[in-house]
Every structure is written in C-alpha cells, then in structure tokens.
C-alpha cells in the first residue's frame, strides 16, 4: 500500500541528515530540520502504527515504490545503510524524540570506518527496528549435524557412576523459585555491575598476573590503565600500578608524566573540593622524581588553601629528596611566589647551612620573602638573627619577627626590646605592633621586667601624653599578666595616682585579671 505523506517524510529525513552532517546535532539550524521530521513521522505513526522502509544499494523504498534515490556513494544515505548490511527499517508507534535524534545522529556520521549497525545497536532504539544481513550468511547456514554413532555401553551403570561420583541426591526436590530477598540480591548485583567501576578489579587482575607474567601485553596494558587512572583522578589505583611495575619490571612508568604540561595540567586538582582526591594526589606525586621539582614549584602558585600549600610543599621536599643544592637553584627566582615556596621548602628540609643560604635574601625588597625567611630562622632556632629584623622597615616583617621571638623566649633580645618600647618612635607605631612588643617583652623579660614596666607605666609626660596613654595601658596589662605580688602592688599603686590615664590603665588591667 502506498501511503501519501511518505515521500514528504523521507524528504524531511534527508534534509535533517544533511543539516546534521553540516552543522552537527546541537546547532539550531539542524533543529529546524529534525523538528519537522519528528512531527511528520509521529503524525504518520499515529495513523498507521508503523512505517516500513526497504533499503537497496542506492535507494529507499516504501511498499515497493522508490521514495529516495541517490547513486553518489559519498552522499547516498541508502548506500551508507546498505553497505553495513541494513536491508529494512521500521519505525513504530511510541517513537520518542530522543530515539529519533540518536538515529539521525548515527546515520549522519561520515567516518569511513564507522559501522552504523553497531552504533544503532548500541543506541538500543526501542521503536526503530532494522533488519541486517551479515556477509556469508548462506555459508553460515551450511551446517551439517554431526552423526552420533551408536555406542554400546551399559548406560545404566554410567548413570550410576555419575550419580556416585558427583554424589547426586536424585531425591532432592529442586525448587528454583526465588524468594523476595533473592530478587533483591539480583537487583543489587545488577546495580553493582552498572555503577561500580571495573578498573580496580582489572588492575588487581593484571597486577596478580604481572608477578608471573611480565609480557609486553600485560605491561603495556598496565601503562595504559595508569594513564586512564590519572585521567580519572584515581590516584590510589595509579599508585598501585606504578608500585607493581617498578617492583616487577625495569620500566619507569612515571617518566611520561614528568613534564611541565602534565604537571601543570593538574592545577585544577590541587583546589578540588574533595579532600580525598587531593590526599591521593599528594600520595601519588610522591612517586615523581627530582626532575619534576621545577614544575611542581610552578604548580604551587595555583594552590588556594593554606593547609594544602603546606602539604604540597612538604611533598615537594620529599620529591627533591632533601636535595638543598637543587632547591638553591631557585633562590634567585624573580617569581616572588616561587621564591617564597622555595624558602618554605628549604625550611622543611632542615638544611644545615640555612643562614648562609638565605643571608643574601635578608634584604630582599619583598616583605613576604623576608617574612618567610623569619619562619625558616625560627624553625631552625636563630633568634639572634631574627632580632635583626626588628629594625626592618616593614611593620609586617617586624611583627613576624616579634612573634617568632615571643615563641622562642630569647632573653638576650630584652634590652633591645626595652629600648624600642621606650623610644619616642614607639608611640607612633600601630597598636597591633605595640602589643606584639609588649608580648615579646613579657616573655623574654626577667627580674628587671616588673621594674621596667612600672617605669613605663608611671613615666611622667609633659607632651605627647595622649599618645603615651596607649603605652601605659599596654604596660598595665603586661603587669597584670605578670601577676606577681610586686606587679599587682604597682597596679594598685597606680589606682591612687592623680594621672587619669595611669589610673584608668591600672583599673582596666586589674579588672581584666
């Protein structure tokens, strides 16, 4: 039966395919073609339930009538389908838009070695059926059932022998019906197949084999899977592969990753929201060699979170195998971030000659660099050298030095601190820095401290008394912190003073105690 409208549908089909070939499926122009095609085909299927098309080498037929013909092999849709063995197509009611789009997308593909049939099968289209002929089908059917000769043995005893050997209980009642729990078990098993990645199992298998079989197939496959793991950010399994390849073969699977492109390519990884992936990544890069250090130093500048910066620096120190000489090469870098990281890594390495290494940078113009140096000096316990930074021009650096000295309890710095605190310039400093000075003073002061604080507290001022009131408060607070009888007596004495700044400072300090 020739049904009107089929020609129009086929024309729409051809237009849609050509448009997809030109612009791709997602392009709006293609949509202008496949939308009407879907509409026309759906209307047709609503009326006729199905649309059957026969495929010939260069033509598409409907009910024996040619509805499309194109003899140019490169452009003929009929030829493309025919070449892969498709001999008929059937569209049935219920066809969805997505199904049709998958179908169009597949038949529009132009790759030479593409097997359209396989692609269509993989699309699993419920409402588009196609009949395929395979090559040599007739030959395949040419099968003769082998003759079975009559064998004269005692079959009764053969059966008895099997029953005995296999210990078969022939009276056992077989009940293969499944209980609901067993149905659930199957559903779980299927969902495990669908959701659980297979790669870890395959890796385990190949690793087991590698111990007894170091053939190229196994080794190469593991190398390929290593790349796949790295791409998938599965660093746990990547480590397993590297570990076993190194243990069982003489190849270095890491070599191909030790380049700037690959290492810098992982910059998004170091800020991943997953702590687990980051930790696995850190563990994985432990397998890199020294030659990758320059790239990792660059990578450090991309890291956002301080705790991760610390972890990655520590890992780089380990990759560099505490090779101070290697790190020294980067101390003349113009890249401030890199320089700071290198100093920090040297700090982690606990190099013997750290002061000598860093001394040229003590006067580095960038305060962050000087600040980082203080961290190194503090870590290596060089308070005397740190004290030099109390004269630094940057308040930020001085505070860093003060904090370091506060922690270190270095009494020899006391005199210098006292001089600073009692100097005229001190009154012009920011309160935060003044506080750090007093903290440091209290920590490092000895017998003289209380007396010195009393002096500061009760100092007679004619001019600049307003600015000095902050210093009095800090001195009073320091005395309260010292908390000895003498210190408290001084504060109580201060309560009786006429100077309202002294009185107020002492009141506050005693209240806070």
């Amino acid at each position, binding site marked *: 039966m020739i049904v009107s409208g089929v020609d129009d549908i086929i024309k729409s089909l051809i237009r849609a395919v050509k448009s997809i070939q030109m612009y791709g499926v997602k392009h709006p122009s293609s949509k202008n073609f496949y939308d009407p095609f879907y509409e026309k085909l759906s209307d047709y299927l609503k*009326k006729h*339930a*199905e649309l059957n098309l026969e495929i010939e080498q260069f033509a598409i037929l409907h009910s024996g009538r040619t509805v499309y013909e194109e003899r140019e092999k490169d452009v003929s849709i009929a030829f493309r389908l025919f070449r892969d063995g498709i001999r008929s197509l059937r569209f*049935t*009611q*219920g066809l969805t838009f997505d199904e049709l789009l998958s179908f169009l997308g597949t038949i529009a593909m132009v790759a030479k070695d593409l*097997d359209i*049939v*396989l692609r269509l*099968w*993989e699309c*699993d289209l*419920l409402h588009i059926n196609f009949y*395929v002929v*395979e090559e*040599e*089908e007739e*030959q*395949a*059917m040419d*099968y003769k*059932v*082998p003759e*079975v*000769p*009559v*064998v004269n043995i005692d*079959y009764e005893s053969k*059966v008895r022998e*099997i*029953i005995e050997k296999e210990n*078969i209980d*022939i009276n056992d009642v*077989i009940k*293969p*019906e*499944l209980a609901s729990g*067993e*149905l659930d*078990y*199957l*559903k779980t*098993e*299927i969902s495990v*197949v*669908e959701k659980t990645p*297979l*790669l870890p*199992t*395959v890796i*385990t*298998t190949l*690793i*087991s084999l590698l111990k007894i*079989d170091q*053939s190229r*197939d*196994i080794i190469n496959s593991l190398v*390929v899977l290593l790349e*796949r793991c790295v791409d998938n950010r599965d660093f746990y399994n990547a480590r397993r592969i590297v570990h076993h390849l190194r243990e069982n073969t003489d190849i270095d699977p890491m070599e191909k990753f030790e380049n700037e492109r690959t290492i810098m390519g992982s910059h998004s990884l170091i800020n991943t929201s997953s702590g687990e992936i980051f930790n696995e990544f850190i563990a994985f890069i432990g397998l890199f060699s020294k030659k990758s250090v320059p790239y990792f130093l660059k990578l450090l500048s991309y890291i956002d979170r301080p705790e991760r910066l610390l972890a990655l620096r520590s890992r780089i120190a380990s990759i560099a195998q505490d090779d101070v000489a290697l790190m020294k090469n980067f101390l003349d870098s113009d890249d401030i971030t890199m320089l700071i990281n290198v100093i920090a890594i040297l700090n982690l390495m606990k190099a013997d000659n750290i002061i000598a290494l860093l001394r040229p940078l003590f006067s580095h113009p960038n305060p962050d660099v000087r600040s980082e140096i203080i961290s190194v000096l503090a870590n290596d316990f060089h308070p005397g050298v740190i004290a030099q930074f109390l004269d630094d021009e940057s308040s930020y650096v001085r505070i860093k030095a003060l904090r370091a000295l506060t922690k270190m309890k270095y009494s020899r710095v006391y005199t210098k601190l006292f001089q600073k605190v009692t100097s005229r310039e001190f009154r012009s400093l920011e309160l935060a820095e003044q506080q750090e000075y007093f903290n440091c003073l209290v920590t490092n002061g000895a017998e003289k401290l209380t007396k010195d604080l009393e002096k500061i507290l009760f100092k007679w001022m004619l001019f600049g008394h307003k600015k000095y009131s902050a210093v009095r408060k800090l001195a009073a607070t320091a005395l309260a912190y010292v908390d000895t009888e003498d210190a408290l007596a001084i504060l109580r004495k201060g309560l009786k003073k006429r100077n309202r700044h002294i009185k107020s400072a002492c009141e506050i300090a005693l209240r806070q105690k």
Partner: protein
Amino acid sequence: MSTSGKDIVSLFYALIKAVQVYDINNDVVQNAGKKFIYYIDTLLNIYSQIELIRYRDYIFFNKQRLRFEIDGYASLQFIHDKLKKLRIKSLTLSPGIDKDEMIIFASIIKEEEDEFHKKISDTKFDNIHIEFSTDEEEKPDFMQDGARIKRSYFKALRVTKNLMQNLWTKQPVDVKSTKRIVYSLIDALSEDELGLLALTTIKNFDEYTFNHSLNVGVLSLALGQRIGLPKKSLAALCTAGLLHDIGKVEISKDLIYKSGKLTEEEWETLKRHSDYGVREVLKARGLDEMGLISLTVAYQHHWNYDGTGYPGRIKKEDPLLFSKIVRICDSYDAMTTPRVYQPIPYLPHYAVRIIWQLRNVWFDPVLAKVFIQLLGLYPVGNLVKLNTGEIAVVVRQNQGNFALPMIKVILDKKEEKIDGNIMDLRAEKEIKIVKSIYPQKYGINPSSYFV
C-alpha cells in the same frame, strides 16, 4: 521488557486477580479498573490502539516482545497462560474504552474456557477486540521456524572459530565481526529465547572449543536476560562468554585434546588458561569496556562461590556478576558435551542436578536457581523415557513450569524411530517422564531436531 508493556501486563494481572476475589462493585476492583484505564488513556495519547498479541510462547505489546525477566515474571506468565488457555491470539483496546467495560471484560476473562466462551459471545464490547487462534495456529511452529535465529547462531559459530583460529595462528583479529555477531545474537534472543537456547544442544566433538565457547556465550546471554541485565551489559556478557576460554589458544592442542588422564603437571599447565586468557583478550579486544569485562571473566571463570577455585585470589575478592554467570554456563555446557577424555558426557538432567547440588559451593545460589528456571529440570535436547514406553526429546521449556517441558516422541515402544507428535506435558496429565536416557544408545544427535 518494554516499560509500557510491562506495566500494562501487571495492571491487567492485578485487575483479573481482583475480580477473581471480589465482586465487580467492590472498591478493590473499581480501583484496579481505574488504575488500568488511567494508564491506558495515557498510552493512547501515544499509540492509536493497544494490542497484546500471543505468539509462540511470548506476549507482544504493540509488536514489541515482552521478555520474561525475573521482575514481573509472575504477571507476564499469568497473562500468557490465560490467553493461551482461552486460545486468545490477540487483544486490542481502542480509544474510548472505559473502566466499566474493562472490569466486565476482566470478570469474563477470569473464567475457565467453556464459561469464558459462553459469556464472551453474549457480551458486546465496543472498544475491546478479541481475535482467537485457529487450531492450525495453535500448533507449535518453533520446530520449523527460526531461520534467522539459526543464521545468527551459525554465523556466530563461524566468527568464534575464525577468532580463535586467528589467535592460535597469531593473525589479526576481526573485532568488528565479533561485535556484530554479539548484537545479532541478542536480537535472536529477543526474538525467541528458547529457540536460541535449543541450538546450544549442538555439540561438535571435533570442534569442541568453538561450539563450547559459543554455547557458553548464548547460555550466559539467556541467563543475563532472564535476570534483567540491560542490553549493553548483555553484549558485554555474551562477548565475555564467547572469550572465556580464549586462553586455551596458548596451550598445546596435544594437551587440550589429550584423551588419557592428565598428570599433575599437565593439569597445572591447563589451569593456566585463565591467566593466558587475560593476555589473549588484551590482544583480541584491547582495553575497551567489553575488553575489560572479558579479561576479568576469562581470569575469574573458575572462581567458585565459596572462595575456592583457580587462579588464587589476592584478597577475598568477589567474582564479577558476569564471571558468576559464566561459571555456571561453562560448567553446564562442559558437563553435557562429549570430549576426548569424556566421550559420554553427563545427561543435561544430571548436569542440572549437579548445579542445584553445588549451589552455595561452586555456584552462586540465586543465579543457579534462575539458570534452572531457564533450562528446566529436563533441558532442551535431553532424551527422556516416558511411562508409555516411548522415548522423546525435550524440544522446549514451558515458561513457568520447569519440570513439565514440551517433548517430541522420537522412538516408539519398540524403540523404532518415528516422527511423533509434540506434546505439552502440562496438558498431557497422564504422560510422565520416567527417566533421562543417553542419545548415544540410539545413535541420536538431539540437535538434529533443532537445526
């Protein structure tokens, strides 16, 4: 199974069950009717009509075959049996159908055959059309049909043979053909699962490895489909089944075809085929998704459910679901196939009993049960002696009754060959299977009844 088809069948089942228990005015029936009609109305926006066709042992919903899967099995089985018993060939529901019409129809279809036919001829349905099958149509046609299925099977056999021979001779492997044949087998399975399964009775003594590989692929496919694996997984499972023994290409043919008892050393060498299988799959398939599954199955297909088996496991790894399926299918086909060192194999019936017995030991117990449901107690190709003294070959399973298959009498009481009738043992209440017997005794190749 098509979701719409599956849902219709289950709603129809619920409605019939409701009218079997309650009066048609009862709320339970009314609600079941309402639900059914609501769903039908939704579908009628897409389809011009709803058609359920019974053909062979299957139900088709608007020309799509509904697969027997574990989930929804009972309802599909019930509807199939009901239509078959009442000799209904097709049932068409048209737009305009309402709840009352459907409930009345359900109350009639619930009846036994005579009562049903009496009532149905007295009642007029505007929007339900029933077509009955003729006696001729009721004859099972699967013995003469299925050319396409056979083509797929034999093409697959040729591809499997080429694949293994190429690996044996270190020639390049044609991956495309393997892929295509797997999909073609999946299509054949959707067309007629039992017809395809019947072809696994083909056991070629001389080409054991090829036939065995294909049969394991087909049996695995059928088991996978029965438990409801999606199509993509079925393709992977079938490929894995075809390739499970591929490691044997690295073992000398002398050893593989050795007829005598194997020495311990030879046995150890033979066991290495699981290891070699991995290497061969890598050569044949590379590391694509199917390759990964196939190599895992090739490695694990002798792992037992209880943790024993070979090769040894590093930790207490669980085998892949696919490996567990292939473990069963491989064992079954190996047991039932004549080989050099086992010229008289196990009868399928006893192989099934062994699988039952070794569930929880060698085999996953749930999969073993589904496998037995699939093959039945007397699998296709099994020769049986009847209480009538005749000998028959099992030609098809009865879905839902695993112990009473369809048989064809091939030898009369005097053990003379005859072209007997096909009988459904569910219907032939007086005919019983007495025992399973060996076809070799009579020089019969059971597969000749299916090819």
